[in-house]
């Protein structure tokens, strides 16, 4: 009985672990970016002072929407269909999508935006 519990726990742990890494692999495959580098850029640009972002230290902001599960949403920036190119476009130049948005243009480079999108799509 105890053995079967242990086996179950081990199985669950393996599934969780493989899910974690496969989410990153999927996100990297969809965007062509590197999720780990994306996490670094998110911290560097200071996204967390406005957004709550799982996995980023100190990212508990309430100004903008929380970004957990952003990959399951249908629109980004309130109007763009949620796909990698649009997410990157929104991250780089939000005012070209909505001139009244409070989200600032932080001078994110194309390469960094791809990595950031990769990280965001890896979030559950």
């Amino acid at each position, binding site marked *: 009985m105890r053995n079967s519990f242990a086996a179950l726990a081990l199985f669950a742990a393996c599934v969780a672990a493989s899910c974690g890494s496969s989410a990153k692999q999927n996100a990297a495959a969809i965007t062509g970016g*590197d999720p*780990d*580098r994306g996490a*670094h850029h998110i*911290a*560097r*640009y*200071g*996204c*967390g*002072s*406005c957004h709550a972002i799982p996995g980023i230290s*100190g990212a*508990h*902001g*309430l*100004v903008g929407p929380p970004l957990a599960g952003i990959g399951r949403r249908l629109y980004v920036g309130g109007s763009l269909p949620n796909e990698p190119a649009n997410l990157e476009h929104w991250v780089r130049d939000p*005012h070209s999508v909505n*001139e*009244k*948005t*409070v989200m*600032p*243009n*932080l*001078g994110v480079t194309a390469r960094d935006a791809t990595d950031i999108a990769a990280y965001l799509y890896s979030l559950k």
Partner: protein
Amino acid sequence: MRCTTLAILTASALSAQQSAVDAAGSYAAAIRSLGTFFLILLGLIFLIVIALALIPLTRRHRGIEQEPLEQTHQPSHGTETRLGTMVGIATAVTILILFGLVVASVSVGKSIAGPSTHANSIAVEITGNQWWWYVRYANLDPSRIVVTANELHIPVGRPVMIRGSSNDVIHSFWVPNLQGKRDLIPSRITTLWLQADRPGRYRGQCAEFCGLQHAHMALWVVAEPAVQFESWMTHQIEPSVAPSSPDEQRGKEVFLNSGCVLCHAIQGTPANGQVGPDLTHFASRMTLAAGTLPNNKGNLSGWIADPQTIKPGTKMATVPVKSEDMQPLIDYLESLR
């Protein structure tokens, strides 16, 4: 991998440079030596006491039936005298050691109290506020007075006299790499001498509980060679730079037409609030909100939009900024090098 290294480097650049055992100046080195001396001497005494206590435990008992010593024997006169002498010697040695420690403490206290000559020194006023540091470089020529916040630049190799006070409650100024603590007390001036013997960035923080955001009351000391220090000083004396684009000009107007000016000053503009940090050269500083966040546009926009989430209880008011005004505002503030 490279990214991880980069992240670690960035993190360590901002967090690992606050250590009392990594002395960057002669005062901190004296304190560290005293600490090491105490540690070794008292450690040795501890080991000796434990060893002496273990000796009787390891001795074989002569027999378990034997009754306790004090009930069966009156100690002989010789034993009594010997015990008395040993207790006397131990007491004398203890007093001598304690006296030695007092002498060592007092002499280190004297050596860190300040330099023998005040020649070549500079003076800086530091005033504690809930929860940030007001920094003012005194000068006989009023046009050369520099006011900044949460960042103290000092020249390497020169003694710096800190004249500390407080605007509200008791704070304590502590930069462990450079010196011990000094309380900042309302309506009173306390002094402290700093000296950095090698260039670097050293983190300091309030060391006296001062309210809700005590933990977010940090400051950075930037010790730099004389030439860099002088050029920093020359730049800080200047009024703020003029906006260089229509967007920055718009940001300046947003700033001047909002509640920001009630608390903040920007030299060279009509903004002359004296409640919060001076923002004349805001973008030249490493952090915002007294070391709470790295200073960049992303963090600045979050800080302006919702300071209470980032630093609950902060005296920074939530000033309503129209959403379309945020970009020009942060562009202007981050242009104030």
